[in-house]
């Protein structure tokens, strides 16, 4: 086993453990963790099975195996960023609805209090 393989495997496993810890502590929701877990599992697999990477790049016609890794990951990151923008938009809408509802309720409450003094 090469030195770089060992480093990659250790880093990946530490990363997986950290994600698990975040989920357990309730700081990361499972649906957002899925992408990270899948990516890390892929990395772990290919750290052990380096011929697999060569095989895949030959199949897809990529000259350098490392280029395939970069392309794949940049694509995955872009998709994930888009997903985060969708999440932010949803939160924005929910936040707006809540704020409006609070202001309307506050007004009703004030009216009720002043009528029943």
């Amino acid at each position, binding site marked *: 086993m090469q030195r770089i393989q060992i480093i990659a495997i250790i880093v990946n496993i530490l990363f997986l453990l950290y994600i698990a810890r975040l989920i357990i502590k309730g700081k990361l929701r499972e649906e957002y963790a899925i992408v990270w877990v899948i990516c890390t599992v892929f990395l772990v697999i290919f750290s052990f099975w380096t011929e697999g990477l060569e095989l895949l790049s030959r199949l897809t016609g990529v000259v350098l195996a490392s280029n395939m890794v970069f392309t794949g990951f940049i694509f995955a990151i872009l998709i994930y960023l888009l997903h985060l923008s969708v999440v932010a938009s949803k939160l924005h809408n929910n*936040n*707006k609805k809540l*704020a*409006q509802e*609070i*202001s*309307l309720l*506050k*007004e009703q409450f004030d009216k009720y209090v002043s009528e029943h003094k």
Partner: protein
Amino acid sequence: MPGKVLIVIPCYNEEASLPSVLDELHQTTLPGGYQMEVVVINDCSKDNTVAVARKHKATVLDLPVNLGIGGAVQTGIRYARDNDFDIAIQLDGDGQHPPKELDKLVGHHIESGANVVIGSRFLEKEGFQSSFLRRLGISYFHWVNRVMTGKHIYDSTSGFRLFDRAAIEIAAANYPDEYPEPESLVLFSKAGLKIAEVPVIMSARRGGQSSIRSFGSLYYCIKVSLAMFFSFIRKP
């Protein structure tokens, strides 16, 4: 039974101009025997807008976070829907929309039965006419609106507008947050509402700052054009 009109005043740091606007409103009577209630929506102002509005006998809706003009106006529209108002009229808190022009909007609504009536600066060249760049933008939106709604709307960025029950129902459910004026017209016209314009005389603002300042105007044009396009192709 006379109908009820809600005057919706979205405010962000308008303590300077709000008292005179509210005083004028309380002295105004509407045609058609309409009863008037004034609601001030405080969009998380940093000054004493709330206290000033309460002192001048307006209902206050106090937003806990800053939502922007669209979100604030929609809060007022929702108040109108929940409290069974016949008409809601948006009027800016900075004094650009003189309350004495209200009867033109209401009068035109009674006469024509239009669902949305816009107070327009440009039908007659009178009063405050805004800067050159702003007018350039406004004529651009006139063109975009003609393409998307098939109607001639000259002052599509005017915030001085009347909503009837049908329009209140639509805007309460779906109203854009940022720069809502041109985009909401696409929504209304897609819903088959009748949009009319009536000339009003506006004044220059009495205090505060415009939400659209020079460096953001390009962003404004791009954002609003995109939003209008997507409202146009979206299924109702």
